[in-house]
């Protein structure tokens, strides 16, 4: 879509120190806005979008890394504890970014349309929900009838162990769910995975008898968090106290902790994805996506490679499931509906199937739309409704506006619109995937 003028402008922007100044200005502006107006959605959008300009502008790698680290480890925690909602939004973005990166391996790299991806997320979440709560001792009781003085099965710090266990358990689930269905192609695979996704949710809904494993539709609560050491709280306060302006309590520190954990998981996931993509395995996945018949004729074991894609994708979701269960301290089957799978798929397609930066951007855009923009508009509309304001010219009083018109309820419509518009205008996504260009020796001396 970029025309010649746009290209020139782009080249112009990326000369000399201009990109550096722009990045710093964007980060600075965002930080200042959020700092001075901690409740403003717009200010927050400016800050969070500075990550995008950090990615897209052409600057030195080291500069980008340092700027990104400052933003992620200094600015966001400080701003986040001043308004915990922001940390919550960023945490959700991270969770969905990890899910989108996992689904990206299956859909984007290997080209297997998986509509039940959220099942693996559920597996991770229920794994920690079961072992990290009193649920083990609730097994013989029907939901709601258990005594209130039950002990916890494991200490909260087992959470860290379960982050790793979830990788293995989710990967095994991926292989188990994958092996019967991966002989199918295209639409058939999509339908069957959709079914499996629902099976997992229905299982979670109904496994409250004969043994009460999941506590049924009521969900499991409380789920333990890892213990928060005092030194972490104190350290954070001494380090950031002056900038924050008030003492940060342990409850708020948990938000920081989960934010940092999510960030670490995302970074590892990005690294794993990139390294796998640029190896024999990633090439095999892409080859399967491009042409299965040719791929198998070149010696690529189809089923094993597809299972690998399922397992890797599932493991990302599993880790994030554990993180979600611990951060929410509550899990119910409702969190793992078909809509969630579609939502993650919308992120992948919006951002750019197969593109790491793309799907992260997709996750951020969709999450922000959901949590910030739509709700912001809803809030604004309801304020208007309560006011005496009238639209001029047509003489329409805002208070007559139907209550049905609540943008926050139009999440599904939004997903649908995103998918349709992207298919029409930018089928490859916001940041399309690109193959790695190799530095090939131009023309070596006449060998052979």
């Amino acid at each position, binding site marked *: 879509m970029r025309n010649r003028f746009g290209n020139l402008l782009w080249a112009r922007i990326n000369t000399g120190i201009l990109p550096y100044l722009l990045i710093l200005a964007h980060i600075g502006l965002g930080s200042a806005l959020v700092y001075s107006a901690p409740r403003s959605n717009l200010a927050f959008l400016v800050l969070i979008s500075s990550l995008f300009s950090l990615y897209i502008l052409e600057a030195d790698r080291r500069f980008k890394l340092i700027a990104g680290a400052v933003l992620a480890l200094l600015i966001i925690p400080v701003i986040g504890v001043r308004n915990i909602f922001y940390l919550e939004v960023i945490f959700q973005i991270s969770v969905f970014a990890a899910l989108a990166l996992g689904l990206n391996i299956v859909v984007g790299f290997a080209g297997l349309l998986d509509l039940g991806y959220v099942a693996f997320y559920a597996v991770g979440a229920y794994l920690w929900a079961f072992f990290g709560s009193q649920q083990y001792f609730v097994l013989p009781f029907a939901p709601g009838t258990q005594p209130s003085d039950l002990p916890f099965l494991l200490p909260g710090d087992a959470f860290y162990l379960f982050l790793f266990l979830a990788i293995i358990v989710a990967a095994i689930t991926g292989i188990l769910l994958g092996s019967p269905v991966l002989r199918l192609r295209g639409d058939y695979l999509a339908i069957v995975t959709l079914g499996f996704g629902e099976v997992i949710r229905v299982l979670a809904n109904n496994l409250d008898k004969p043994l009460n494993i999941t506590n049924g539709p009521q969900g499991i609560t409380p789920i333990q968090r890892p213990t928060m050491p005092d030194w972490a709280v104190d350290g954070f306060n001494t380090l950031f106290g002056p900038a924050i302006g008030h003492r940060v309590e342990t409850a708020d520190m948990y938000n920081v902790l989960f934010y940092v954990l999510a960030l670490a998981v995302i970074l590892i996931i990005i690294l*794993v994805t990139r390294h796998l993509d640029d190896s024999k395995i990633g090439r095999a996945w892409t080859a399967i996506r*491009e042409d299965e018949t*040719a791929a198998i004729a070149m010696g*690529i074991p189809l089923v094993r490679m597809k299972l690998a894609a399922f397992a890797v994708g599932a493991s990302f979701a599993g880790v994030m499931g554990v993180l979600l269960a611990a951060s929410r301290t509550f899990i119910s089957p409702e969190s793992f509906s078909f809509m969630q799978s579609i939502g993650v798929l919308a992120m992948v397609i919006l951002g750019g199937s197969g593109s790491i930066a793309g799907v992260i951007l997709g996750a951020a855009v969709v999450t922000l739309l959901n949590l910030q923009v739509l709700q912001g508009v809803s809030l604004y509309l309801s304020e208007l409704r309560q006011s005496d304001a009238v639209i001029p010219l047509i003489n329409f009083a805002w208070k007559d506006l139907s209550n049905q018109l609540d943008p926050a309820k139009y999440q599904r419509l939004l997903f649908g619109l995103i998918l349709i518009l992207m298919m029409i205008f930018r089928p490859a996504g916001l940041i399309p995937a690109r*193959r790695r260009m190799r530095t*090939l020796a131009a023309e*070596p001396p006449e060998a052979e």
Partner: protein
Amino acid sequence: MTLLETIDLVKSFGGLTAVNKVNFQVEPGRIVSIIGPNGAGKTTLFNTLTGIYRPDQGDIRFNGRSLAGLRPDRIAARGIARTFQNIRLFGGMTVIENILIGMHVHLSQSPLEALLRLPGFRREEREAEQRAMALMRTVGLVGVGNELAANLPYGAQRRLEIARALAAEPLLLLLDEPAAGMNPQETEEMTRLFRTIRDERGVTILLIEHDMRVVMNISERICVMDYGEKIAEGTPAEIRADARVIEAYLGRGAVAGQHEERWR
């Protein structure tokens, strides 16, 4: 010792027997052609040899072992590589990556090595890239390593498909109409390339081809199929003189030299 041998090979689809009790052998180091009218079962034979179809009856013996019932990727790993009649490249991948896919079975890197970028992994990738460059030169592709395969012109795509197949270091190379859609000069170059591949790499070549100049020029033996059956086999000279072959290609009357009458 024969490299490839089919024994009473049968493959049918519903009521149609596409390959009917075919027996033939390929000696190592030879260039052998399979010819026959459209629908004679040539491509089905290729697909059965490479495991895309499972033979209904009979056996395929390759390098002393049976291939019947093996998955295509196992057969590829045994040393049979192929090209396709309607080019099947990985269009969204670069030329180099297409060739690297061909090397898949020979790369020993484990997922862990790839994840941690261990020195062994880096070395193997670098060497693979160099071998891929060398293969590009062999088939006459220059300076297009980073192009997407889908963006190559038709002739270059055919060459790339051969390079990808060669990357698998096969003992036997199956080429399905490699000269289709090429002009005489390109065809000439292709023919030369096949000879080079056989002479320098010792790869046995089995090809399906309709262009009789290519077939007669390059083949050491020719196998003729019609309606799923092998109707003749021999040297180009023998085949040219074979009455059944002429009949299959030109119709019954042709043998008696009456073929011109039919157009009159």
